[in-house]
């Protein structure tokens, strides 16, 4: 009898355990997995949003995607941002974290707050700030003119290469501090005695950094890498508010182009947009998998 009661209690506990996570799990299934399946189905359809029909042939949207020069350009742009911005940002972040993790350094809190501060503003806000500063009649041109570096105002956002440069600078400005916080947290987990040991073994600062700090930070580095890749592949706010994709769509990102094809002005092409968004999903998944594979030190 007593035993039976106990069994009942255990079963009750078990049921409670499942009840705790049922809302969250259901929400993720309904709000993430189910829409993903819907997106896949929609990607095989054509027509306006109210009147979707199966595409003929079924892979029509995907074939169109690879022939769409504009989409390929947006893929190229996104990868350009990825390849240039992510390494610079992460190296800068790790360097700053290393410098700030010095126990002899004064004003540590102040420096950290300053570098971290850009995270306090929204993506739209900082995009608009940079857009204003880099306007043709903007502050950067005025400063450069006064310093005698340029004699004519540069149309930063009106030319492809300078517009891309501004986006990259803006991204580095906004996200370096964010990543630095991860490295600082990681560095603080490393025991001071590890460094002492390295010192006794005769390792200099650079060697210590490369052979002690980096390997110990490896999991954090991989995580920030995945997050940065994921974020950059989904870049939207900056492309919309800093350059509006221009000039002539040479700075547009994948997400921005997909948005324009579904909710932008003109025809809403949900089928085609879904096909492109599925492509983004596959890219994110592949790059994350590669990263995890490279980062996996367990043989």
């Amino acid at each position, binding site marked *: 009898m007593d035993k039976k009661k106990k069994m009942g209690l255990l079963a009750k506990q078990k049921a409670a355990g499942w009840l705790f996570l049922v809302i969250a799990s259901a929400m*993720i299934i309904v709000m993430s997995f189910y*829409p993903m399946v819907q997106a896949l189905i929609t990607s095989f359809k054509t027509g306006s*949003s109210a009147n979707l029909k199966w595409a003929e042939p079924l892979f029509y949207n995907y074939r169109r995607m690879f022939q769409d020069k504009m989409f390929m350009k947006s893929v190229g742009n996104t990868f350009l941002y990825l390849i240039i911005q992510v390494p610079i940002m992460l190296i800068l972040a790790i360097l700053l974290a290393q410098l700030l993790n010095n126990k002899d350094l004064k004003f540590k809190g102040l420096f950290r707050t300053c*570098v971290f*501060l850009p995270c*306090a503003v929204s993506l739209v*806000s900082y995009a608009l700030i940079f857009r204003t500063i880099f306007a043709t009649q903007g502050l950067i041109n005025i400063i450069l003119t006064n310093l005698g570096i340029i004699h004519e105002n540069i149309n930063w956002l009106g030319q492809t290469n300078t517009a891309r440069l501004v986006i990259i600078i803006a991204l580095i400005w906004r996200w370096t501090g964010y990543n630095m916080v991860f490295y600082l947290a990681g560095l603080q987990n490393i025991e001071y005695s590890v460094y002492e040991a390295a010192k006794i073994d005769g390792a200099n600062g650079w060697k210590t950094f490369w052979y002690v700090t980096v390997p110990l930070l490896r999991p954090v580095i991989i995580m920030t890498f995945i997050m940065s890749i994921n974020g950059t592949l989904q870049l939207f*706010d900056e492309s919309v508010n800093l350059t509006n994709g221009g000039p002539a769509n040479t700075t547009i990102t994948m*997400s921005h182009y997909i948005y324009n094809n579904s909710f932008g002005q003109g025809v809403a092409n949900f089928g085609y947009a879904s096909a492109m968004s599925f492509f983004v999903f596959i890219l994110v998944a592949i790059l994350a998998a590669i990263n995890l594979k490279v980062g996996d030190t367990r043989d």
Partner: protein
Amino acid sequence: MTDKKIKANSSAIQKRLIPTYIFLTIVSIFSVFPLFWMVTAATNLSVDVSRGKIWFGTHLVENFNNLVANTNLWKSFGNSLLYSTVQTLLCIFICSLAGYGFELYHDKGKDLLFAILLMAMMIPGVATMIPLFTMMSRLHLLNTVWGFALPAISTPFMIMMFRQNSRNFPPDIMEAARIDGLSEFWIFFRMYMPVMKSTYAAAAVITFMNAWNSYMWPRVVMTDNRAQTMPMLIANLAGGYTIDYGMLMMGVLFCSLPTMIVFFVLQRQFTEGITGSVK
């Protein structure tokens, strides 16, 4: 003698750190300047901003009045506040329940489910945007706080954070509470929630910031101007042909104010929030 030695030693260390100080100062100036400039530009006339004035002006009130007269400032500010608060409260409640369940009642089945849910992290927002829009429009939730919040009230990141931090919650407390006759749910409300206060604070800060700053989804789901959020409002301000820079920066300042306040008051929680699941 030894005191002197230590002093001499520390001043030598400080001397060696001079390049570090210089570097950090330069980086700090670069980091802070655009935000400083945002604040000063909000106090200047558009012409002065274009002339490159970087110090405070006297047109703060004028820019503010222009902003109120030309936009739905208070409505949008209220919308953003409402949407973000509702999303934050629901998110930390639902995700903490799940994190608690996954960690303290864990078994093979739940671990598997968790691994599957984690995969949702890789799903890009742009891919679910269209089906979610269709769903919300069928449910008549466009332009409502629910349309805004529902897709984001359960995230793998937040569940992971609560799950990770639940390891610090001593199971002994649960046992003791059970012996006292508390039901499983009351243990959560009466024991877990108070003990995990700091995790809740960190989760709330990070969720609020994300909700307030979100832009793509609100743009999709808020089709009516009266339902728009602050980021949408300032993005529209910059869309015109002639831009009043003083007014624009006033709007940007207003959009950044709540998150800046949260940042300065709760910086520790914010840091914990973004790094919360790395431990």
